[in-house]
Every structure is written in structure tokens, then in C-alpha cells.
């Protein structure tokens, strides 16, 4: 066995571990956060401050029966949850946590992450189609149109960043912003004065891509019961759940790397993995904060936002950045 | 005042040839109460009665023949009333079923009108008013559930509150669970 293969295996195991641990404890954070936003303490019963809640939940999910309803498309039904989790884990492989902590750096890291991210909508489509449930089907159709609508502005903003940096390597993009918060892409006003707007667009798109409130139309519980995972039980549901949280982590990792200087310190001191973790968890907190503040949009509201506001703005920013790069 | 207008309009339903309704229409509630109590076994004669609002809670009480019902209700509709409810009463002693229609107004010209019609218990058929008030649909279905009164011409007369296969009518006085 070659050394690279061992390296890759080790990386994959580490990524799975990180993703699973994060997913499990993000559920705890989400519930705690929800509780605090609603003036209640959240889970308190299992362990101190409810810290043992995630393992308990995990055991519950794993020991439950996996019900496969009659008439489902078995192959799609079984593949879908795996497909929801798999791209998330694969994306972790190429994310640099600091200058040296990266499982497998690639010079087209950005491209790879987006390639995997678009597989997520496949999982939704498979789950919705496969489970032979009208709610699930409607949800999956929504999910796909949402994914298409939001990948466009998201990629346009990413192209802007790639243009500024001149690289698709996530590590290079992060290193390009080192030195202090004035160097971060979110404040790169000299390169394009619309960069903060660009950040907002990217952030909104991340919310939509990860199916988070207020864009959680796929699983709009008051309309579509539970959306595409209505028919899933046990770990089938668990994988969807973990996949969602893993996607949130990846979304915040990307936002941090592309806009917030990666592992760089705001004041240029002691760059390192702790800054990176701090930034992603702050972003995740914002995700939770937004979820527990706003009502859900509708499908047309969501598409209107994407096509009428986000895409024009991101396109304009792209042109402006290109023009400024050409001039200066 | 709307009360006079609508009363006029409803009284027109009863041609003076019958002679009997005309004096009834002029009766006040006190007279009516006094008259009604002894003559209990006798069903009330069709006609319009002005009621004491403070005592009963409504202004006009019109009892019509099932044939006159649609005419009466369209007069109410034309006067801009909204439908409050439809219900039935089972007068077992008189062997009759009564359908009671309540109407009220949205504006400040307070007027509550009750239209009633009586049918024989054996042949309980009343024309539907869903053509005039679409909101009568559920009320009529409910009355059909509870009393078994058939509303002829109703678009969808299936049990609403009772189970789909219910063949009993719980509010009939001779209903035993």
C-alpha cells in the first residue's frame, strides 16, 4: 500500500469523524440555541447541561427499526441518505483548517466542493421520488429548483473571488487574505466596492443551499409534513439529519475561507486553526440565530429573491470586479 | 329602518286572501306568547311576527311554507343579510320538523331575522338555499345529519359531522343511542 493511499484513508476517516462529531453536537447546539432564543434552557436532562443528549439520540436512532414502506423504489430509497452524507464528508477532505492541517489539498478545491455540493440535490430528488409519498415528491421538486436557483448566484460570487485571487486552491485563497481583517475579501473594497454585498449574497446562498431556515422549503414541516424525509426512519433519517449539519459546517468553512480570511487572525497575530474554528462556529451560531428568528419564505419568494435580486447583484459585482482588475 | 322594509317584503309572501296571517302579523310578542302557550299542540300558523328583541334576541320571526322558502330567502338576500346558521327542531308531539334559518346584518341597522319552515316528520323535504347562500351548504348538511331532513337540490348532501356511513339522526327526539 502506498503512502498516499494511507494518507487519503486517514484523511477520510478523520473527515468522517469530524463531520459526525460536528453533526451530533451541532444538533445539541441548535437545540440549546433554540432554547436560549426562546427563553428556555434547552436540553438539560442527559448529563450536565444536556451534553449527553447527542449520543443518546444517536443510540435511539440506531436502535430503531428502519421502516421501508410498501411500494417505494427500494434502490433509490436506500441510496438517498448515503448520498446526502457522502458529499459532505468528501468535501471535508479538501478543506484547509490551517496552513498545514488539510487532508488533501487540491489546486481546484473550490471546484471539487461545488461539484460535491450539487450532489446534495440528487439525494433530495432520490429521496422524494423513491419514497412514493406526495409530500416527499413535492418537497424534492422544490429542493431541486431551489438548488438550481441558488447555485447560480453562489458560483458567480465564487468566480469573483477566484478572479481576485487568481487561484482555485482554497489554501491559496486563504493565504491571499492573511495579515489582518482589512485584507479579508469581505473588505477588499479596492478590488471591488461591492465585496460586502457579495459576502451577503454568498451567505444567503449558503443558507439556501444547506436547506436552512428561512429557506427550508424542502422540509417545511407545516406544509409538507417533513418533506423529502417523511418516510424515513431510524438511521435513514439520521443520515439526512447529519448530512444537513455537515453541510452547514462546510458552508461556514467555505464562507470563512473565501471571505473571512480563513485561519488568519483579525489583527494578524498568531494565525492558526483556532481562529478558523472560532470563525466557523460564529457563522454556525448565525445560522442558528437566523433559523430561530424568521418565518419561512415561500417557493416563489425564494425564486424571486434569487433571480431578481441575488443574481443581478452578483453579476454586477462580477462585471465591476473584472473591470477594476483590468483597469488597475 | 330595515326592520319595516324587510317585514313588508316578507309579509308580501302571504297574500291577504288567507286572511288569517294578516292579524298574526300585527301581533306583538306578548300576545303571541300568551296565545302560543295554551295552543301548544297546534302548530303555529304561517306568517310574520315582530318580536320583542330584548326578550328573544331577534326582531322578526317568519314562518313560511317550504314552497315559499326560496322566495323568502332571496328577499332576505336582496336586503343584504348574512347567513348566521341553519338548524332544525324536532316537534315530536306535533309530528313535525322545523328548519330554522337565522339571518343577521353586518351594518349598524340591527336586525335579526328568523325564517322557519315546518315539514311533516315522515316526508321531511325542504328545498336547498345553497343557490342563494353558498354558505348554507355545511349548515344544511349538518341539519341533514342531525335530523334527516332532505334538502332537495343540495349539491353534496353527505354526512358532514357524523361518520360517512351514519344512518341515524341523533337530534331527533325519538333517537335512542
Amino acid at each position, binding site marked *: 500500500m502506498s503512502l498516499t493511499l494511507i494518507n487519503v484513508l486517514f484523511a477520510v476517516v478523520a473527515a468522517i469523524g469530524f463531520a459526525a462529531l460536528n453533526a451530533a453536537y451541532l444538533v445539541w447546539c441548535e437545540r440549546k440555541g433554540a432554547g*436560549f432564543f426562546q427563553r428556555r434552557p434547552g436540553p438539560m436532562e442527559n448529563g450536565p447541561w444536556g451534553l449527553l443528549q447527542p449520543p443518546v439520540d444517536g443510540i435511539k436512532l440506531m436502535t430503531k427499526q428502519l421502516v421501508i414502506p410498501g411500494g417505494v423504489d427500494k434502490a433509490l430509497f436506500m441510496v438517498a441518505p448515503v448520498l446526502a452524507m457522502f458529499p459532505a464528508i468528501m468535501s471535508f477532505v479538501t478543506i484547509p483548517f490551517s496552513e498545514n492541517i488539510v487532508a488533501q489539498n487540491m489546486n481546484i478545491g473550490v471546484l471539487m466542493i461545488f461539484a460535491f455540493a450539487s450532489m446534495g440535490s440528487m439525494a433530495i430528488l432520490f429521496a422524494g421520488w423513491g419514497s412514493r409519498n406526495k409530500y416527499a415528491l413535492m418537497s424534492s421538486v422544490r429542493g431541486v429548483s431551489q438548488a438550481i436557483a441558488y447555485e447560480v448566484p453562489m458560483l458567480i460570487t465564487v468566480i469573483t473571488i477566484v478572479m481576485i485571487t487568481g487561484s482555485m486552491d482554497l489554501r491559496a485563497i486563504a493565504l491571499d487574505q492573511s495579515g489582518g481583517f482589512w485584507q479579508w475579501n469581505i473588505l477588499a473594497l479596492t478590488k471591488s466596492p461591492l465585496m460586502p454585498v457579495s459576502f451577503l449574497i454568498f451567505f444567503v446562498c449558503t443558507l439556501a443551499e444547506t436547506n436552512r431556515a428561512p429557506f427550508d422549503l424542502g422540509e417545511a414541516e407545516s406544509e409538507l409534513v417533513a418533506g423529502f424525509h417523511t418516510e424515513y426512519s431510524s438511521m435513514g433519517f439520521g443520515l439526512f439529519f447529519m448530512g444537513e449539519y455537515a453541510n452547514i459546517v462546510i458552508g461556514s468553512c467555505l464562507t470563512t475561507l473565501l471571505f473571512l480570511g480563513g485561519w488568519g487572525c483579525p489583527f494578524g497575530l498568531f494565525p492558526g486553526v483556532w481562529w478558523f474554528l472560532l470563525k466557523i462556529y460564529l457563522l454556525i451560531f448565525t445560522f442558528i440565530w437566523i433559523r430561530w*428568528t424568521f418565518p419561512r419564505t415561500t417557493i416563489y419568494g425564494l425564486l424571486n429573491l434569487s433571480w431578481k435580486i441575488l443574481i443581478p447583484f452578483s453579476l454586477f459585482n462580477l462585471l465591476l470586479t473584472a473591470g477594476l482588475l483590468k483597469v488597475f | 329602518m330595515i326592520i319595516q322594509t324587510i317585514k313588508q317584503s316578507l309579509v308580501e309572501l302571504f297574500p291577504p286572501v288567507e286572511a288569517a296571517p294578516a292579524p298574526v302579523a300585527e301581533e306583538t310578542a306578548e300576545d303571541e306568547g300568551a296565545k302560543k302557550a295554551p295552543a301548544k299542540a297546534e302548530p303555529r300558523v304561517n306568517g310574520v311576527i315582530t318580536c320583542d328583541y330584548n326578550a328573544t334576541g331577534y326582531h322578526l320571526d317568519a314562518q313560511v311554507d317550504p314552497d315559499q322558502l326560496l322566495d323568502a330567502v332571496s328577499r332576505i338576500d336582496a336586503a343584504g343579510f348574512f347567513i348566521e346558521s341553519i338548524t332544525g327542531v324536532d316537534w315530536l308531539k306535533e309530528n313535525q320538523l322545523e328548519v330554522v334559518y337565522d339571518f343577521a346584518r353586518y351594518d349598524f341597522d340591527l336586525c335579526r331575522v328568523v325564517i322557519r319552515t315546518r315539514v311533516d316528520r315522515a316526508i321531511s323535504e325542504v328545498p336547498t338555499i345553497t343557490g342563494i347562500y353558498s354558505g348554507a351548504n355545511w349548515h344544511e348538511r349538518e341539519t341533514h345529519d342531525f335530523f334527516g331532513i332532505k334538502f332537495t337540490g343540495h349539491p353534496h348532501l353527505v354526512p358532514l359531522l357524523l361518520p360517512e356511513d351514519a344512518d341515524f339522526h341523533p337530534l331527533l327526539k325519538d333517537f335512542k343511542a
Partner: protein
Amino acid sequence: MSGYFSEIISGGKSLVVGMSITLKEFFKPKVTLQYPHQTVKMAERFRGHIELIENESGEPNCVACGMCQRACPSGCISLTSKSVEIEVEGKTKKKKVLTSYDLNFTTCSLCGSCVESCNFDAICYSKEYNLASTRKEDFHFDLLKRLKERNS
């Protein structure tokens, strides 16, 4: 076109205002009660199920008149009595004595008609609200027995 931008701005502002409100609430003290560990004190007039009231000698005040039984809309009270002869100031008097007082709590709607109808101050509301069981029989209360248990 100006409407387009002003809507984006006002909309964005409304979102920020909303988020600032939830953030403020985030740091406020919690308002909930950790139920099994902490319990609520019931209001003085709280209407639970009924209990018999005893007199000084520990006997129920109830004279078995049956008013409560008749007042109950759901028919969940059933009581039996026997007459005994007692001596009061040298005279023998007949008196009804309660022999059983059963409350079928499964059909009780806690309306309080029984307590209201009682002229002898013989029943009161209990403050108990932790009533949960998986068996029906647990809600058939023998109030006379409960009274004795309370006294012992």
C-alpha cells in the same frame, strides 16, 4: 426601480431588527421551570378533583344529602349512606352517615358544580395535579378511604 432598492433596504432593515430582538432575548433569564425538579405552587382556588372535608372529630362533614351527585353533569359521583341512631342531648335522632363516596375521575370535567352545590361545606378541591396513570382503575377514587389515609 427606486421601489426595488427601497424594498431591499427596508426589508433588510426589518430582518436586522428582528435578529436584534432575538439576540436580546438570548441573554435574558430563562422563564421556564424544570418541571419534575421544580414544581408550581397551585393557586388557592385551583380546581382539582374533590376531597372530603372532615370535622373536628375526624368524621366527614358530609350528611349524604346527595346534592353533589345530582349536580354533577357527568354523573361521576356516587355515594351511599346508612341511617344510624345517635343520641344528642338525651334524645335519639336518626342521622344519615356516609358509608362510601366514590369519585370516578375519568369522566369528571372539573367544573366544580359539586362543591358549589354543597350546603354543608363537606367537599373541597384538592391541589393535586400530578395525576397520571396507565390504568383506568387508578382514577376511581374512594374519597372516604383517602380521608382516613390523610388522618392516619
